[in-house]
C-alpha cells in the first residue's frame, strides 16, 4: 500500500494541471490595462454573438411567449398570467415535476456514487489511459442510439437481458413497460452512458489534490478509507460541487431517452417535464403554455443551482 502511493506520487507530480494552462495563455496576463478592452471585446465577440443568438434571445422570447396564447401558426395573443394560472392547477405539470425529480434522484444518486468510486479507483490504482478510454466509451455513443439499444435489449419477450434472466431462472421483467420500473430503467440507462464521463471529471478534480498530502497521511499510517474521508472528500468538494451542479441540470433536461422509448407512457409514468413541454409545444401547438412551463423549469433550475453552490461552497477550496 505504502509503496503504491509513493510510486504514484513520484511519477505523476509534474504533469496535468500545471503545464497546459501555462503554455496556453502566455504573455498578456500580467499587463492588464484598460487599453486592452477593445481587443478583449474582439475576442469575446464570437462567443457573445453565439450566446445572444442561441441563448439570450430565445430565453427572452420564451419569457414573452409565456404571457401569450400562441398556437404557432397564428400570431401570439397577449394572455397575461393565464398560462401561469393554468400551470398551478395542471395535474400533469405537477406529475411531470414529480416524475422528473424521481428520475434525477435515481440518476444523480447512482451516477455520482459510482463515478466517485471509479474516479478514486483510477486515481489510487491505475494510470492506464486505456481504462480511461474504455470508461468514456458509452459517452461516445449518441443518446438516441444508447436508448434504442437498451430498449431492444430489455424487451420482455425478445430482449437479450430477459433471455439471460430466464436462463438463471428468473421471470422476465418489462423494464420499460411497467409504470413502476420505467423511470428507474431510464435513469439507469443514462447512468450507464454518463458515469464514465462524470468519473473523468472527478478524476481531474482528484489530480488537483497535492500528492504530498497523501504521502504525509501514509507516513502517519492512515488507512485508505480514512484518507478517502479525511483527505479526498474535503479537497474534492469544489470539483464535486461543480460536477453536481452540471449533472443535476443536465439530468433535469432528460428528454431523448424518453422520446425514443416510452414516449411519456405507460399512462403518465415517464412524462418528464421536457417531454411534457415538447408535447404541449410541438404536438398540441400550445406554445404559450409550453413557454410558461419552460419559465417555471428555468426558475426551479436556477434556484437549485444557486442552492447547491451555496451549500457546497464551490467558490472556495480548502487547499488555501
Amino acid at each position, binding site marked *: 500500500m505504502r509503496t503504491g502511493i509513493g510510486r504514484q506520487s513520484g511519477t505523476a507530480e509534474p504533469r496535468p494541471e500545471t503545464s497546459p494552462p501555462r503554455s496556453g495563455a502566455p504573455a498578456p496576463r500580467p499587463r492588464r490595462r484598460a487599453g486592452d478592452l477593445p481587443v478583449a471585446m474582439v475576442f469575446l465577440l464570437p462567443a457573445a454573438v453565439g450566446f445572444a443568438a442561441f441563448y439570450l434571445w430565445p430565453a427572452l422570447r420564451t419569457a414573452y411567449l409565456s404571457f401569450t396564447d400562441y*398556437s*404557432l*401558426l*397564428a400570431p401570439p395573443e397577449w394572455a397575461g398570467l393565464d398560462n401561469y394560472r393554468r400551470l398551478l392547477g395542471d395535474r400533469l405539470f405537477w406529475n411531470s415535476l414529480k416524475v422528473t425529480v424521481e428520475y434525477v434522484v435515481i440518476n444523480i444518486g447512482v451516477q455520482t456514487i459510482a463515478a466517485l468510486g471509479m474516479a478514486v479507483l483510477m486515481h489510487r490504482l491505475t494510470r492506464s489511459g486505456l481504462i480511461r478510454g474504455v470508461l468514456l466509451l458509452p459517452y461516445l455513443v449518441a443518446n438516441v442510439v444508447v436508448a434504442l439499444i437498451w*430498449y*431492444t*435489449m*430489455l*424487451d*420482455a*419477450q*425478445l*430482449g437479450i437481458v430477459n433471455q439471460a434472466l430466464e436462463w438463471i431462472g428468473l421471470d422476465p421483467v*418489462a*423494464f*420499460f*413497460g*411497467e*409504470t413502476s420500473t420505467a423511470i428507474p430503467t431510464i435513469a439507469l440507462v443514462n447512468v450507464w452512458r454518463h458515469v464514465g464521463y462524470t468519473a473523468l471529471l472527478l478524476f481531474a478534480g482528484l489530480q488537483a489534490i497535492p500528492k504530498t498530502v497523501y504521502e504525509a497521511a501514509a507516513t502517519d499510517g492512515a488507512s485508505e478509507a480514512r484518507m478517502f474521508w479525511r483527505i479526498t472528500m474535503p479537497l474534492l468538494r469544489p470539483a464535486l460541487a461543480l460536477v453536481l451542479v452540471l449533472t443535476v441540470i443536465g439530468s433535469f433536461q432528460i428528454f431523448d431517452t424518453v422520446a425514443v422509448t*416510452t414516449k*411519456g*407512457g*405507460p*399512462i*403518465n409514468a415517464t412524462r418528464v417535464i421536457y417531454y411534457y413541454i415538447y*408535447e404541449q409545444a*410541438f*404536438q*398540441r*401547438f400550445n406554445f404559450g403554455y409550453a413557454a410558461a412551463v419552460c419559465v417555471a423549469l428555468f426558475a426551479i433550475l436556477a434556484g437549485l443551482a444557486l442552492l447547491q453552490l451555496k451549500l457546497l461552497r464551490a467558490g472556495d477550496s480548502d487547499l488555501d
Partner: protein
Amino acid sequence: MRRITRLAAVATILPLALAGCGSGDDSGGGSGSAQAPEKTEISYWLWDSNQLPAYQACADAFHAANPEITVKISQFGWADYWTGLTTNLVSGNAPDVFTNHLNYYPEFAAKQQILPLDEFVAADGTKTDVYAPGLADLWVSADGKRYGLPKDFDTVAIFYNKKMLDDAGITEDQMKSLTWNPDDGGTYEKIIAHLTVDKNGKRGDEAGFDKKNVKVYGLGLDENNGAGVGQQMWSMYALSTGWQFTDKNPWGTKFQYDDPRFQKTIAWWRGLIDKGYMPSLAIARSGTSVNDGFGAGKYALSTNGSWMINTYYGYDKVEVGTAPTPVGPSGKRATIYNGLADSIYAGTKHKDQAWRWVKYLASADCQKTVGDKAVVFPAIPEALTVAEEKFKAKGIDISAFTVQIHENTTSLFPITDHASDIGAVMGPAMDAVLSFEAEPSSLSKANDEVNALFQ
C-alpha cells in the same frame, strides 16, 4: 427569374387568372425548346420510406413530361414528419406539396396553411369522382373547401401465422367467417384462445392452461394504444357494434366514448390480457413493435393496417395470411377507411407548378405507377386493380382488406378539430384502462374532457 416574381405577385391577387395563364405559358415553353429558361424546382414530402421509390418514379415521369419542373422528394419518419412540417410552416419553408393526413389537415386548413384547391380544380376541369367512393369527400373541410386530392387509402385486417393455424387445426376458411361480440367474444375469441399456447404446450382453452407463462399469445397487442382512434387496435370491434366515434362524421363536435357499447368493447378487449390470450400493456410497451413480435413468432394473430402488408409478409420463415375483421353484433364487419391526399402549402412560390404536380399525383398515370410497386392501395380503382395483381404476383391476397369496401362496411376516420388535444387526453386514459389501473367506465370522464375542447 424576375418574371416568376412578377407572376407570384399577380398570383396573390388573381389566383384563378394565374392558373389559366400560367399553364398556357408553361406548356408553350415546354413544346418550344428543352432549354426553356424558367426552370423551377418544387419540394415534396412524404413519410413512408416504402413508398419513396414509387413516388420517385412518378416524379421522374412528371419531369419527363414537364422538363421545366423538377420535383425534389424528401422522406421523414412519421413522428419527425409532423414536427418538421409544423416548424417549417412557421418559418415559411414548408415544402410546396406534402402528403397530408386526415388527423392533421383540419388544423392546417383552419390556420390557412394549406391552399384550397377549388379554383384549380374548376379551372382545369379536374374530375374528383374518379376515386374510390367517399375518398375525395374526406378532403372537403367544414367550410366546403377542398384541401387535397386522394392518393391512396387503407383498411384494417387480421394477419395470421399460417403454421400456427395449421398446428391448431384452424382452417383459413374459418378465419374468413369469424364472428365477434363484446360479451363472450364469439368465434373470434374461441380461436384466439385456441391459438394461445403456454410454456407446457397447453392451449388457452384447455384445462390447466398457465396464463402466467404464455409462449405464444393468440392475439398481439400494439405498442401504441391508438389513443382516441384505435385504428388497427380496437376500432374494428367497437364500430361493429354500431357505435360511432362522434355525433356525425366528418366534422363531429361530440365524441361518444361514454357509450356503453364502446366501453363494453374495451372491457372485452382488455379482458384478453386477463385471460392470458393477449400480452399485458407492459409487455407490449417494453421494446419491440407488435409486428416484430408477430415476426418472431410470439403472436398467432395481429390486427394491422394495409400499409403494413409488406412488413408482415417480409418476415423470414413466417408464412403469413390475412383475414377480414370479424362480423360484429351489428351483423356487419367494420374497419376504419382512411385516405391520404396531397396538399399544397399556402406559402408556396410556385402555386401553378405545385398544382400540376398534385394533379399528376392524383392521376391514374401516377397511381398506376404506385400500384405497380405494390406498396399501398391507390385511390383510383383502375390503379388499385394494377396493385391487386402486383400483390398477387408476390403471393399476397389483399381481398381481406378490400372486401369491406365491396360490402360497404367501412367507417370514415373520425375527422374533427382538436385531434392532437384529443389524443393527449385519450392516450393516457386508454393506457390506464389497459393496465387495469382504471375501469372502462373512467372513459366517460375522458369523454367529458374531450367534449369540453369543442365548447
